[in-house]
């Protein structure tokens, strides 16, 4: 067996993996880039929430010199997977620059080959297909074609770095100390069913959307089947994958604002909806009727990020913790307060958002957007 062939795809044939974990997010609301010290320190403080079988980071603003190109991070679990994938890439994209991602020795398990490509979609493609859709199609194709190649990051001027190891070790492995970004989201994983595989770590990504997730989706079976109707293929055997595709579908394709999307993912109870004033009630009722299959049931706290925005959200009966805090221009989201205090002992504001109510940080909005999607009855 080739040294690059790995027993990564779970021998247990799991549809999805469970995760008990830690999440952390930090963002400069002024859009100023900073290095990895604070995020790595914070996520490693929550060491006991993970078990070393997964860690990862999403960083925004890291490729200023290539920011007009899609930066694809691809992991190869076998050599001929790279050959096949390179052919697919060449047929879909102009490859501006590609290289093996720089790594160094660290306490991580069995790393696959990690490659980075800066690409632009070929001009000759169907007129009604936007560049973004073209990239998504290519990503879904690569992820299903060989079974040994996975695109784990596909946005512009941002990147996901993840794998099997504690988050601090993953940071070490990928030399994250060399990167500068204005938004970092981090994850430490505690998978219970499989030995952990590199594709199953968080963050999950499509285009520039990333999701880190603490919890388990008991609604995964139907979330996934609903998304499959819209062309998303779930290949990474982790329930979090549907969250990334759901935000892409709802926020990018259907252009729904986060305040509405959080009402889809963590909907209000019917008993509350029935009591709202008619306009609001009709919208919320229609949202549940139409998007009921995207209701995320089960405990979750998530950090969703894309360029310019970081969003924290918990499930509607708040079964997982999430703390939000600000200090000057910096917004912090964390599973535990101690991690925030470690990197920023003094804070301007600290609060725990209610179940189902998003915390939203937007670049440019110096005043923090902490928006409750539910209006109080007068």
């Amino acid at each position, binding site marked *: 067996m080739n040294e690059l062939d790995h027993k990564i795809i779970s021998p247990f044939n799991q549809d999805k993996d469970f995760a008990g974990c830690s999440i952390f997010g930090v963002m400069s609301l002024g859009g100023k880039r900073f290095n990895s010290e604070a995020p790595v320190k914070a996520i490693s*403080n*929550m060491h*006991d929430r993970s078990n070393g079988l997964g860690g990862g980071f999403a960083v925004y603003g890291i490729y200023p010199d290539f920011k007009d190109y899609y930066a694809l991070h691809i992991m190869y679990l076998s050599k001929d997977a790279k050959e096949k994938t390179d052919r697919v890439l060449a047929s879909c994209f102009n490859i501006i620059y590609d290289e093996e991602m720089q790594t160094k020795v660290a306490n991580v398990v069995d790393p696959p080959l990690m490659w980075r490509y800066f690409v632009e979609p070929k001009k000759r493609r169907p007129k009604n297909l936007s560049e973004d859709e073209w990239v998504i199609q290519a990503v879904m194709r690569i992820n299903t074609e060989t079974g040994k190649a996975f695109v784990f990051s596909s946005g512009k001027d941002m990147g996901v770095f993840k794998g099997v190891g504690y988050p601090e070790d993953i940071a070490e492995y990928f030399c994250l100390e060399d990167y500068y970004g204005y938004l970092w989201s981090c994850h430490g994983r505690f998978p219970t069913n499989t030995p952990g595989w590199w594709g199953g770590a968080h963050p999950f990504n499509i285009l520039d959307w990333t999701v880190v997730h603490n919890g388990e989706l008991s609604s995964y079976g139907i979330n996934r089947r609903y998304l499959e109707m819209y062309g998303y293929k779930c290949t990474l055997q982790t329930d979090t994958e549907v969250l990334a595709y759901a935000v892409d579908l709802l926020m990018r394709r259907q252009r729904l604002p986060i305040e509405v999307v959080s009402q889809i993912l963590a909907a209000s109870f019917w008993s509350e909806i029935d009591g709202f004033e008619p306009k609001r009630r009709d919208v919320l009722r229609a949202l549940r009727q139409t998007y009921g299959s995207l209701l995320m049931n089960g405990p979750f706290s998530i950090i969703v990020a894309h360029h310019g925005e970081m969003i924290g959200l918990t499930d509607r*009966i*708040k079964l997982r*913790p999430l*703390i939000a805090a600000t200090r000057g221009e910096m917004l912090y989201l964390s599973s*535990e*307060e*101690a*991690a925030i*205090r*470690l990197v920023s002992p003094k804070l301007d504001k*600290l609060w*725990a958002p*209610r*179940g189902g109510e998003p915390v939203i940080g937007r670049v440019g909005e110096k005043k923090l957007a902490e928006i409750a999607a539910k209006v*109080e009855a007068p």
Partner: protein
Amino acid sequence: MLAELDSRLLSRLTLTDKVWRVNAEDLHYRELNSLLRTLDSYGAEKVELHGVYGQRYIGTNLKTNMSIDIYGTPGNDLAALMNGPHITVHGNAQDCIANTMNEGKIVVHGRAGDITGYGMRGGKVFIRDDIGARAGIHMKEYMDKKPYLVVGGTAMDFLGEYMAGGVLIVLGLTLKNGEQHKSRFVGTGMHAGVIYVRGNVTHLGKEVKITEVDKGDLLIIEGLVREFCSYFKADFDEVLSKNFMKIVPYSHRPYGRVYAY
């Protein structure tokens, strides 16, 4: 006793005027708690922990009346199964504090997280600011052994869920003018014990009802509020100037009609 500890831990310890000062920065919780138990077994009376960032289980299973001052942010399960000591947190606490706590006292100069006092069986917990979800869940009492949880601010959903005893007070002192408590499903599943709320809650579980506070209740409330004010320098008269509502369960057997035999 000091001979038992290895030099690494020794270097973190200083003793001044009978107060043991511990530098807990970067110290793993197992070692920190082991250190506390060693100090406990030798009758240390006052301990200060500095540089605490998320270490868990502090105070767990300690049995004497040691007093511990924590500087920093203690991690989850603070004082779980604790049996006597008095802990003061100079800052915020996280989730699951006083988990199945049996005896002792916790005073938090800040807020606390979710699932505070799960299965608490005795002792007292005072939180100056707000508290998270599922506070006081399944608190229990027996005869004169009763737990008390006093919250200075407001609480999130499922307050007092499954309560089977004890006293839970929420004072709402952090609410701004005109703001109300937003807790939903208060007392759901409750079958014993009592919740006092200063101000109003409207969203109750179906097992509980609101009643008037009587003289006996007032005595209990005053005693606890007095103690609360002493810790947090709040104004006793100001606190008692607003009305309290009393929330109790309808019955000890709320689910009689559910099952067909």
